[in-house]
């Protein structure tokens, strides 16, 4: 992916602080599920949209449609629409559905059924390639989603055609009803991608500098970046719990959570 802007921990942390706070507020207010997986990908989204998103030259496909609050909050923070609109999330008649909707400005495709975004993104990348447009597709997948065979069909295709796709795995190690390694063993995960002839990096998915460095490459080759993440990061009460996939924070947990988020990010933010 082409280098866009100079890294600033302060800029992406300010984004993450806002996005993560909105995620837990939205989940609390609407008693919505899927908070854990929304929080585990927040740092990546903050870095990507702070430094690498460029209209027309990049497309972000958000395959883990259930974790919609973080992409909605991200797009709001980066002015794709008025952040006030987030208040309608999941309400009757709102375009902000509880799985990602392409009717929301900035969203490429609707997702919610897992294993769909990678094939669609590969079609976009293939079309861009034959028209010789400079373009990079970034596709965010959950780890549990790798159970779906369509992803592996698509990875074969992307590797074969050397499409300029950056595949992101939010490896928080928890899926709907258990640990990924208990439900269907993914390990050795990096080896699997490398065996598909895909360049693969594995990094700390909450380290903004590491995310920036991983994305900051002039390579047009297909790549997989495995983000080692923590479900519900950085909420002390909810981190690494299956419950965070289902339960919204109660009043007390919301206050604690907002405090945890503030504490976690403010150290990086220049005053």
């Amino acid at each position: 992916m082409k280098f866009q802007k100079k890294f600033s921990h302060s800029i992406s942390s300010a984004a993450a602080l806002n996005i993560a706070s909105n995620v837990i507020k939205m989940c609390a207010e609407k008693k919505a599920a899927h908070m854990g997986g929304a929080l585990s990908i927040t740092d990546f989204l903050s870095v990507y949209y702070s430094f690498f998103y460029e209209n027309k030259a990049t497309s972000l496909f958000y395959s883990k449609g259930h974790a919609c609050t973080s992409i909605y909050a991200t797009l709001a923070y980066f002015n794709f629409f008025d952040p006030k609109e987030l208040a309608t999330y999941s309400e009757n008649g709102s375009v902000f559905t509880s799985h990602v909707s392409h009717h929301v400005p900035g969203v490429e495709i609707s997702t919610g059924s897992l294993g769909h975004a990678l094939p669609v993104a590969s079609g976009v990348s293939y079309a861009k390639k034959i028209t010789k447009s400079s373009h990079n597709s970034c596709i965010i997948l959950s780890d549990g989603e790798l159970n779906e065979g369509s992803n592996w069909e698509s990875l074969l295709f992307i590797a074969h055609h050397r499409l300029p796709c950056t595949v992101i795995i939010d490896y928080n190690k928890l899926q709907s009803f258990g640990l990924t390694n208990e439900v269907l063993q993914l390990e050795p995960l990096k080896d699997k991608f490398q065996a598909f002839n895909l360049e693969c990096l594995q990094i700390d998915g909450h380290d903004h500098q590491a995310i920036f460095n991983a994305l900051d490459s002039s390579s047009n080759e297909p790549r997989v970046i495995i983000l080692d993440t923590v479900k519900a990061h950085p909420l002390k009460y909810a981190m690494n719990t299956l419950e965070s996939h289902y339960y919204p924070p109660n009043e007390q947990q919301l206050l604690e959570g907002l405090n945890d988020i503030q504490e976690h990010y403010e150290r990086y933010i220049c005053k």
Partner: protein
Amino acid sequence: MRDTFVSNLIELAKADPKIFLVCGDLGFNVLEEFRDAFPDRFLNGGISEQNIAGLCAGLAKEGYKVFFYSIGNFPTLRCMEQIRYDIAYHFANVNIVAVGGGYAYGSLSTSHHATEEIGMLRTIPNMMICAPSDPSEVKEILKIITSDPSPSYMRLNRSGEDLIDFVDPLEQGSLHLAYSGSSDFQGKAFISNGAIANEIYKDLVLASSSDDLFTLPIVKPLREKIIVKKLLQYKEIIIVEEHQLIGGLGSAIQEILFDYYSSSELATLPRIHRVGIKDTFQSVAGNQDFLRDKAGLFSYRRYI
């Protein structure tokens, strides 16, 4: 039908740089000419229909008019959810074309019988569903689906189907008069589509029948009023389809007639006989005619 599809698609692709053909690793001795003429607009996606359906949606998102070509069940049932969600919901200009409709690949066994796909696809919003009966209808439908941005499905048989000498030109969403044996419209009308309509046509011609035959090459969307008006003229209607009785052509016609009757827009209902597959699989070897016969599809002949 297959050869007409490919030769006409080549002609259309010469004039329209947005036409793109994707196959699921088949097309030996069929697709080479397209591939060689338009290498940038041809792609063999491999044996991976779920991936192909999604990537077709991606190509369409970039402005291509995509054709996804494969055998019967594979570009349809195998990737039904990708069709619903990636293609139809996003109104992607993807046209699925399947060879081997009905029992056309009969001897290849149940895996290759396409006998449920029209009913399943018909329930998906935005989809145009087509089952032409002869090469001339294939050509007409191809023009329609190429100029219409809706996602679509077209069921083909194989190759070598006879031309039907249609009485009227094809009108989108309406019945297409293939054979007219009656002058006063008081007799019986057959309604069919796909390759089995071609068999009925030959039978009616041979018998110099006084009945009529309509094809319904586009099963969805339908121009209901025109269809009802045409069918009003008959006392007896025989609907024949090489498809499960549930959900296909007969269901589509009956739904319209009953809705019109219930809303009092229609005073009486014609007597309707339906010939189709009675909720069964065929699990023995056999060519198309053998399996059609075994499934009872030739029982329409008793009405001739």
